[in-house]
Structures are given as structure tokens and as C-alpha cells.
């Protein structure tokens, strides 16, 4: 390989935050508070990150509406929802700290909806025992990102907008920088830094029907994997039960769970509320994996709508409440689907929404398995286990964004800048430049579409070995073809060129997902195997970890971190007092112990 590299912009900082969504911004604020010079890099403009799409709310046991709520109940809901393969320490920290993170957000200028006596209002959501979601109508994510963004601006933290980083730079075992390009003019840029916080979000774009924006291409996991970090629970991909179905152009766009939280009904074609059968206790507000599967089954049984969905009906709530509590849903359906949801039912079907898996991190610090690399938010794994509860992602961003920021902020005080070997940069430049020259003939968009179709068909909601293996073959074939991509035009704001590099990350992530999905021969949470419909007790004690072995994806089983006795006791106590609580958890399972 030619080691002569093109000139590039070189920047130096203490802590580099990759991604400007909720986790990245919160991490940056905390790292700056620890005295570090912080730079944020994001692929889009500031304030456009996927966090902005979050609608329903942020889960925190404030107990403002249901005074019985507390962190212990929130903890149990989270772990039960995650089917006990969560990192229980993360679930504990998350449940304990999210109330403070919500209050703190208001000190940055956010204003949540209020109770009549002036406290933060909370709404019901799927699989949360109590009304727990702090919200602002149905635009909670916008409120959150704007407040964090304002705070970052106030603190004078530098944000490099429309820059894509594609490779972590290492000095021995330590991560000491990152390399990529400026989207606007295509110039290369390298950051030298003492610590990196990965906050790049998820990878919904590897599927065809998704609620995710173009940014969700798995860059964080891709870069981390390439550099040697471990990827935990990749097979756990969440379908949100309710995405738009019709017209085709809007397929996959999210219909917030708040629609059901506010009292919406799911109905089959003949008007029957089918969730009464699938989960008589929690009904429409069962956990997302259960609701998504129920919808799938209804459609498979021929009881769906003509476009392959089911109905979601709020007309009984009255126009006034709908317009006040669900204004953007009202607007979205009116504008995009010609449906007035105050008068007609919506048509919905499951859509890819969230990645529970991601970089394996330490609970307290967000430190990955690579020295100097931290991760927070959707790109990190462990908190949500096999299924995430609605509202837990926004609180995840704040709780673990702050923790990663604090940890990176104190780590950077202990270390100096590393030495960057130019050959890493030359190598990455060669990869980046390849699609612009040479005699390839593949179209990056069409390859992306083929990957999305393959993942949708083979690794979607309902999985089996045959389809997963076919999907794996498609991925391996596409891996060959991406080397032959040819993109027209210059490096100046060229989305085709950008897609060519994104595809490599998408393929890495896809391969991790599929390989782990093949090995998890059971059904658990979001992972539903038609050929193994039951849970497997032994597999319930392990997480799958994917790692880079000389460029190949290898898998390992790791025992689920043991739940400390004081947390395990909570489940036993809940089981003992089931009759006393208003809304008892459906099935309090005994905690699974992991052999040390």
C-alpha cells in the first residue's frame, strides 16, 4: 500500500466526542465540566441528530403522578423488559440517576409538560408499571436536544458540523485520535486527542423499513470493531410496533408509543382489540417486542389491513385531547397520509427502531474494551438487554452520556497525547478514495438497497436459521462488491461517495447481527426465532459478543454479569407483595444467577 498520504487538516483536543445527539452532547457538557477541552464532531448540522425524533418521553421515576413509583420499580421494569440479559448494574444506575438528569435538563432551559401544581407531568408507556414518562407533547426529543445544544453553545464547546469520522487512530493499544473527512469540501481531517467518546447512535438504516434517519449507519460500532472493541448483543434489534404503513413513501416513519400511552387502541381489520388476547393485563401497553409480534401474527393470520398493517385508533379520545397531546402525529398523518386521526384510525405495522446491542462498556464509566475509548447512548450496549422499554433510551443518553463524559474527563488528565502512525492515515485515505477512481462499476445506493432488503427478509422480526444463513451469504457477497463501487463527481458534498464508506460499517454491523442471531437458538425479547419458539435457560445466562479477528467477525459467549444480591432481592420482594400493588408485574421471574 502506498504510504504517501494526501494533506489533511490536523486538529488537537483533549476529549473528542463523536456524535451530537443526546448522549454526545451530554457527555461533552460533563467532560468540559471536568476541565477538558472538548470538540464535538457530527455528520449533520447541530440539532438534527436522531434524538430529535424521539417523541414519547423520557423515563424517570419521579413519582409526580403515581407517588408509589421509585427507582427500584423502574429497575425491575427495565430488567424484566430486557429478559434478564441486561447488565444489572447499568439498569440500576439508570433507574437511580434518571430523575436527577431530568431535573438537570430543566436547568438547561427545557420545559416539560406540567402537573396542575407545577411539577413535571408523566404519562403511561409500554411495560412501565407506573406513569413515568416525562414529556413535552409528542416532541420530547426536540426539547431535549435543543436544551442540550443551547447548553453546549453556552459553554463554548466547539462543534464540527458535517464531518464524518471513519477510523480510530491507535498508539499501541490506546485510542489516540480519529480520522475522516469534511462532508462539505471532502477534505480529510485528523483529530489528535487523549480520549474519544463514541456517541454515534444506532444502525436502523441497514434495514429497509426503519424509523431511523440516514445517519443510523452503525459508524460507531464499525469503527470500534475495526479498532478491536467488542460488540455486545448485536442480535437484539428492536422493532417498534407502530410505524406508518401507507402510503409507500412514508413506510416505517414512527408513530409514537405515546399514542397508546394516551389511550389508543390497536384493532384488527374487523375492529377487534386483539391485544386483549395477547396480553390481557398490559394490553396495548405491553412491551414492544410483544406488541410487535402480536401485530405480525394478526397480519399473518389475514386479519390485517389491505396494506399489511393493523389499525391504531384514537378517535374515542376526542379531537381536543388528540390535538393537545399528540399534535405532531395529527399533523404527520394529515399531511403525509391524508388521514385525520381525530376521525379515522391510523394504519400501522412494526418498523426497525433501535439497537439494544452495541459496544460493550463498563457500567460506571462507559469505558469500552479499548483504552481511551468510551461509548454512551444507543451505540453502547448492556442497559436494555433483549428489549428496550419506551422512554428508557432518552434517560439512557443522559445518565450514561454524563458518566462517559466524566470518566473521559478525568482519564484525559492522567495521560498525554499519543503518537499517531501516519500509515494508519494513509491506509484509511486509500479506502476512502477508492470509489472515486478505478474501474469499479457498482452503485453504492443500489448495494445499500440490496443490503436493506436482505436484512429485512433474513434478519427481521421473525427469524429462522435458513433465512439467517441466506442473509449471511448476501452480506458476504456484498462485502466483495463494495470494493468495486464507483461514484461519479468530486469530493465536494457528494452523498454517493459518503454512502460508499457508510456501507462498509453497515456490512460489519449486519454480519455481527446475523452471526449472533444464528447462534442464539431461542426466542428472547426482540429476537424471535420461528424455529426455536421457546426461551432456552442456558442461553438466558449468556450474552453474545462479536469481535474482530483479523478482519473477520468472530463470536463468543459471555456470562451475563451477575446481579448483586440486593438487586436480586427486589424481584423476590415484588413477587411476595404482588397482590398489594395496583398493577402487578405480569410474571415476576426469579433472577438468574450466573456461574462465576
Amino acid at each position, binding site marked *: 500500500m502506498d504510504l504517501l498520504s494526501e494533506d489533511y487538516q490536523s486538529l488537537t483536543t483533549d476529549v473528542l466526542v463523536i456524535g451530537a445527539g443526546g448522549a454526545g452532547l451530554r457527555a461533552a457538557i460533563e467532560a468540559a465540566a471536568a476541565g477538558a477541552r472538548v470538540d464535538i464532531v457530527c455528520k449533520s448540522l447541530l440539532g*438534527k441528530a436522531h434524538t430529535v425524533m424521539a417523541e414519547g418521553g423520557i423515563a424517570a421515576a419521579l413519582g409526580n403522578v403515581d407517588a408509589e413509583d421509585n427507582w427500584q420499580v423502574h429497575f425491575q421494569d427495565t430488567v424484566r423488559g430486557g429478559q434478564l440479559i441486561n447488565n444489572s448494574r447499568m439498569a440500576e444506575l439508570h433507574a437511580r440517576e434518571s430523575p436527577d438528569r431530568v431535573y438537570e435538563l430543566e436547568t438547561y432551559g427545557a420545559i416539560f409538560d406540567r402537573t396542575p401544581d407545577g411539577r413535571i407531568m408523566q404519562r403511561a408507556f409500554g411495560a412501565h408499571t407506573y406513569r413515568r414518562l416525562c414529556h413535552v407533547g409528542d416532541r420530547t426529543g426536540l426539547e431535549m436536544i435543543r436544551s442540550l445544544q443551547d447548553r453546549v453553545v453556552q459553554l463554548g464547546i466547539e462543534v464540527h458540523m458535517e464531518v464524518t469520522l471513519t477510523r480510530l487512530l491507535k498508539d499501541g493499544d490506546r485510542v489516540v485520535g480519529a480520522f475522516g473527512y469534511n462532508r462539505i469540501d471532502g477534505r480529510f481531517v485528523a483529530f489528535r486527542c487523549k480520549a474519544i467518546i463514541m456517541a454515534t447512535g444506532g444502525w436502523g438504516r441497514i434495514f429497509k423499513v426503519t424509523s431511523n434517519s440516514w445517519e443510523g449507519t452503525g459508524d460507531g460500532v464499525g469503527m470500534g470493531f475495526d479498532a478491536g472493541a467488542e460488540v455486545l448483543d448485536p442480535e437484539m434489534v428492536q422493532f417498534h410496533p407502530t410505524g406508518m404503513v401507507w*402510503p409507500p*413513501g*412514508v413506510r416505517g416513519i414512527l408513530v409514537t408509543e405515546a399514542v397508546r400511552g394516551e389511550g389508543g387502541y390497536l384493532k384488527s381489520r374487523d375492529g377487534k382489540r386483539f391485544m386483549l388476547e395477547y396480553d390481557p393485563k398490559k394490553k396495548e401497553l405491553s412491551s414492544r417486542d410483544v406488541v410487535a409480534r402480536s401485530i405480525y401474527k394478526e397480519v399473518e393470520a389475514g386479519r390485517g389491513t389491505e396494506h399489511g398493517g393493523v389499525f391504531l385508533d384514537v378517535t374515542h379520545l376526542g379531537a381536543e385531547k388528540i390535538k393537545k397531546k399528540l399534535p405532531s402525529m395529527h399533523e404527520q398523518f394529515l399531511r403525509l397520509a391524508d388521514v385525520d386521526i381525530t376521525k379515522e384510525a391510523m394504519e400501522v405495522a412494526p418498523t426497525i427502531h433501535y439497537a439494544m446491542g452495541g459496544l460493550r462498556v463498563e457500567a460506571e464509566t462507559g469505558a469500552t474494551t479499548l483504552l481511551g475509548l468510551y461509548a454512551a447512548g444507543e451505540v453502547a450496549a448492556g442497559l436494555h438487554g433483549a428489549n428496550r422499554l419506551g422512554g428508557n433510551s432518552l434517560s439512557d443518553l443522559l445518565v450514561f452520556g454524563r458518566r462517559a463524559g466524566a470518566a473521559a474527563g478525568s482519564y484525559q488528565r492522567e495521560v498525554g497525547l499519543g503518537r499517531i502512525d501516519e500509515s494508519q492515515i494513509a491506509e484509511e485515505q486509500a479506502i476512502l478514495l477508492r470509489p472515486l477512481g478505478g474501474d469499479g462499476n457498482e452503485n453504492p445506493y443500489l448495494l445499500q438497497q440490496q443490503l436493506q432488503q436482505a436484512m429485512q427478509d433474513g434478519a427481521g422480526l421473525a427469524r429462522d436459521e435458513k433465512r439467517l444463513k441466506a442473509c449471511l451469504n448476501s452480506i458476504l457477497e456484498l462485502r466483495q462488491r463494495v470494493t468495486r463501487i464507483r461514484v461519479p463527481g468530486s469530493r465536494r458534498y457528494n452523498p454517493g461517495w459518503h454512502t460508499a464508506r457508510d456501507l462498509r460499517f453497515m456490512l460489519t454491523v449486519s454480519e455481527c447481527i446475523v452471526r449472533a442471531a444464528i447462534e442464539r437458538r431461542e426466542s428472547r425479547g426482540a429476537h424471535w426465532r420461528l424455529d426455536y419458539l421457546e426461551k432456552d435457560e442456558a442461553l438466558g445466562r449468556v450474552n453474545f459478543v462479536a469481535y474482530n479477528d483479523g478482519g473477520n467477525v468472530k463470536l463468543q459467549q459471555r456470562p451475563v454479569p451477575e446481579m448483586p444480591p440486593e438487586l436480586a432481592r427486589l424481584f423476590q420482594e415484588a413477587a411476595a407483595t404482588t397482590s398489594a400493588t395496583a398493577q402487578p408485574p405480569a410474571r415476576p421471574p426469579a433472577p438468574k444467577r450466573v456461574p462465576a
Partner: protein
Amino acid sequence: MSTQTRTAYGSIVLRVFRGETGDGREERFEVPAVEGMVVLDAIHYIQANYANDLACRWNCKAAKCGSCSAEINGRPRLMCKTRVDEFGKDEIHVWPMRAFPLIKDLVTDVSWNYKVNKEIPGFTPPANEPIPYRMLPEDTERVYEYRKCIECFLCQDVCHVLRNHDDKSMYYGPRYMVRIAALEMHPLDTQRRTGLLHGKAGVEMCNITKCCQEVCPEHIKITDNAIIPLKERTATEVYDPIGWMLRKVRPRQEPAGVTGGETTELGGVRLPQRFAVKDVVRLKSGDRPFARVGGVRPDGKLEVWILKMRGTQQHWKGPRVIGTSDVTNNYGPLDDVGIGSKLFEQTLVDHAE
């Protein structure tokens, strides 16, 4: 998109602006129509099938992030929210926002907006406010309208002041009036932005054509509910901290600032207005011009120099002697207001009358 639906709806023709700084032209594309298709879908189809390098910004595709702003048949709109079927068989012309410098194709350089945003003092709660905050619903509800803003910058694109002044030095634009309004009306904010507003932010530049609120995809009544109330903030805010605080915490029923009052009243007591040399004031007469105080006479009357704009040049005409009752607003010292800082960049000419 499935071929089945494709054939049922025929095709549509888009004329998309392509080019970089300095040169550009429309390029014609024919795209198979699909039911419910939006302009952004058509752009994506073009990217995938005809022009991999066609530049456009987008993120959520659900009108929540405000990235895909463009001028569609001359009107600033979000591409993700504009259905192609509303144009019937007409060709659809898609252009970048023209108030901002072109980068390439549909992408423009909107960094100026982010620069302006940095100049606005952020949310500043009282230092000793107990956390968690208590804010009553009636105090918070009216702030929600401003906070709906998704920063698509369509209002900035359509604003005559920004479009016609390339240097954009006169006015922050509608987006930042909305932002300032959100901050000013936050029940717990203690910062004052009145000086900035009438100075560097240039709220006076808005001539209330309401174009911005017509294009707002979030239906924020930008002019009615943000700019006009801000324009009419009175001396009360500047000179009466107690009344100002009270209103912050317990906003009045009518839109903020629309008092029309020329004196400061608190609990029925009339408080005298104070003036100092170099204060910027606004006069009641005619077109309500700005003036700066040149001197305060022993009888309480003021000598003022009145601001006249000639292009970007500021001319101060005077001196003229007026009574304090001829003043509606006093914005405080020239330099604080921000007009002062502008004077260094522009020619200051005093004209004796």
C-alpha cells in the same frame, strides 16, 4: 418502491438545481410516481438511479428535524413534507434556499445562523432557584409555541431583510426572534435581552410582512406571537426589574410587551424615567424613530439626535429638544444596546439641523 404502484401513477418531472458556487442550472429528471410520494422521495430516487452525487440535506424524513429545506416552485418548504401530487402534472422545480451561499446543488451554507445563535445569551435561571423547578402550567404553556421550532431556516430564507442584505448585519432574522422570545418568556429566566434585541439583533428591521410565519412548517405565528411582542417591549423591562420579574413568573394575559404604556407603572405608582447621555431612546412621534440622548437639560428636557438610515450608513440628525413624555422606550447606553458596536463598522455622520 414496488413496480406495481409505479406504473399506476405514471411519472413526474423534476427540474433540480445543480451546481456549485458561481455556476448552476436546472437539470431535468423523470421519476416514477408512487402514491403519497414527497419531493424528498423523488430526490432520493434521483440520487440512487441517476445522480449519485446530487447533494441534499435530510435526516428524519418526518418533518421533525428541519434539514431538507428547499425552494419548491419558488416557495421555501420542507421536501419531506411536500407531496408531489399537489402539483398535478406540472413540473416541479427544486432549488436550494437562496438567502444563503450555495455549497452544492440543494445544499447551502447556513453556518451564519449558528453564529448568530451564539450571540444570544442563553437561559439563565436564578442562582438559588430550588431544583426541581416548580413552574405552573399557565406560565409554561405559551413558551411551547416558540420551542416547537425545528430550525429549518425557511423563515430566514424568506425574510426580506436577510434576503436583501447580503451581509446580514442588520437583523438576526425570524428564527432568532423566536429564540429570544422563548428565552425572554421562560418563567425562570433572569437574563435581559432587550438591549440586544433593539440593537444588534435588529428587531426594528422587521416590517411585519408575515412571510416568515406563512412558511413555518411548525405553524409558529412568528410575527404575531414573537416579533410583534418583542418589538413592543417597553421601558418597563429596562428600568423596572421588579415588575419585569413579576411578569416573567406570572405573565400577563395579553401578549408580552403589548402595553402601549409610556410610563412605568407598578401597583399604580408612577415611577419617573431616567435618562443619561448616550442612552438610546425611541420617540413617540410619527414613524417612531430611534434617537440617542445628547444631553439632559436642567429642566428635564432632552437634547436628542435622531437616527436616519441611508443604506447601511447611519446618520444622526439633531440636536432636537424634546420632553421626556415624547419618549416611549429607553434601551439604555448606546454601547450596551449594540448600535454602538455597529458604529465602528459603519460611517457615523452627524447632521446639524
